[in-house]
């Protein structure tokens, strides 16, 4: 298995992108987007996570097994969120007596 190493320039660019995204998250926090504030913050966070995983954690150049492990982790996060939201979003479908 050959070890692929990215150039310093690539790492610097990724680092700059991460800093820019952090600044972006902070800036968006001062703008009232209503319910979309959370959506935008999470989208930026996902982009940052992908940059870290693909470049800093070398997933881009990893074996298929390593990629499977990463996808497995994401899938499990999805299970946590999906089934929890399955509760939270449907809680009020049945009316509460007296209300």
């Amino acid at each position: 298995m050959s070890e692929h190493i990215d150039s310093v320039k690539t790492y610097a660019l990724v680092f700059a992108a991460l800093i820019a995204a952090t600044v972006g998250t902070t800036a968006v926090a001062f703008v009232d987007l209503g319910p979309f504030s959370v959506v935008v913050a999470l989208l930026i966070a996902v982009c940052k996570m992908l940059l870290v995983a693909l470049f800093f954690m070398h997933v881009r150049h990893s074996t298929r097994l390593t990629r499977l492990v990463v996808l497995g982790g994401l899938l499990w996060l999805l299970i946590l969120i999906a089934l929890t939201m399955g509760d939270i979003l449907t809680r009020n479908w049945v009316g509460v007596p007296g209300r």
Partner: protein
Amino acid sequence: MITAAVPERENYLNNAYGIKSWLLTRDHKRIGLLYLFTVTLFFFLGGAFATMIRIELLTPQGNFVSSETYNKLFTMHGVAMIFFFLIPAIPATLGNFFLPMMIGARDLAFPRINLLSWYLLVIGGLFSLFAMLAGGVDTGWTFYTPYSTTYSNSWVIATALGIFISGFSSILTGLNFIVTVHRMRAPGMTWMRMPLFVWSHYATALIQVLGTPVVAVTIILLFCERVFHIGIFDPTLGGDPVLFQHMFWFYSHPAVYIMILPAMGIVSELVSVFSRKPVFGYQFVAYASMAIAVLGFLVWGHHLFVSTQSVYAALVFSFLSYFVAIPSAIKVFNWTATLYKGSISFATPMLYAFGFIGLFTIGGLTGLFVAALGFDVHVTDTYFVVAHFHYIMVGGTIMAYLGGLHYWWPKITGRMYPEGWAKLSALIIFLGFNLTFFPQFILGYLGMPRRYHVYPDEFQVLHVLSTAGASVLAVGYLMPMIYFIWSLRYGKVASANPWGATGLEWQTPSPPPVHNFDVTPIVTHDAYDYSTVIGQEVEVG
């Protein structure tokens, strides 16, 4: 009598001496023993709390300890037993010791990380121990919010921090097992030739790695709310207490499988060896472990049936919960089918395996009761659930753990345990266990709530029976402690393969050499091919 001075063969126990040789060891076998020592301490600590609980429950009045103390007793019993005994018990002791040997490896993939994981368990344990000595914690082992974050005046943070730290011990052990199974198998050890003990530990390791980080996050959130009053779970701060339950049980339900899957792995080994037959439907049993690991993550909402969880979510969780019964039943039926026309011997480890199969079946079937929405509403927070849980954890995991400990004791120490005493203790444990926990099913069904120390007079008979059973159980647990220690000096010297087993761990001397095998084994047979050991001398009871 003339005895010739023969130099003792070098093994992992006599190759180095002194406290440093243990505390800085990277040998998975020595680390396994460090874990054995640590979890045994926590087992007796948790047992001491249980003893006080059972003494209190002898009478309907709360006259032995105060309500506050009682709350702390059952909490600390749960914390000590679950996080510091049951979760590490089998994987970190027997798994650590035997997983590499069973696949023909010299050690785990990351020996230093293995030692680190033991230190993390000890540090986490010390934090929780400090909390227990400083005044204890009273939230229940489940730390439900907002009580744990806002109202409890006990040592919540110190205990939770201890669990947080020990969680990393569990993650690192799981990581080590996954990498070891993928990368360190001996030549010829294909996936379908791996012993089922290894399969079940592989499945366990996946849960440890995928689930434990979530409880770590949950503890951090609990910390943020309790210390910084950031509203996450407390409704008065804008949080959702049921969110805590979701996050907690996302880990803690699969954690039950972290505790039971390795036990199932032991039982697969025992049933095969002591009936001298390959495990019936090997592939099904192996894949059943993987199925339990995956399905175990989809059912946590059945702990929330009486919370404000949506009825629709509850329906889905109830439906999914029944699916876990399928791989569990596959295992039980396949073990039973393995016995069919087998050459069965009733050695102590096999007695424990029989105990496991019966008690796990009762625990598993009552699990279906509580997965049913209607019935669960009736028995939630009653002794029915307590009994169900203990049938799985004590009747299942601890029976298998003791079975495994007896089975591999000759390999670990090079000495046989006294068979007669061991059989007697297995019998006492089985009887004591049932006397302790069967009355609790009835108590719970009749409406005795858990976590109360004052109860109506009509429940006293059943409580007295349960406490009497606990005394018998305690005697049963103390006996192996005594004769195991006795056997270290006086036990009969064990041969390399006293049971005539097929596993690679038995193809090397007892106790094993430092690097497990003098020559790397080459595997040419399936895991339970008894034609390979025909003619070997066997010591069975």
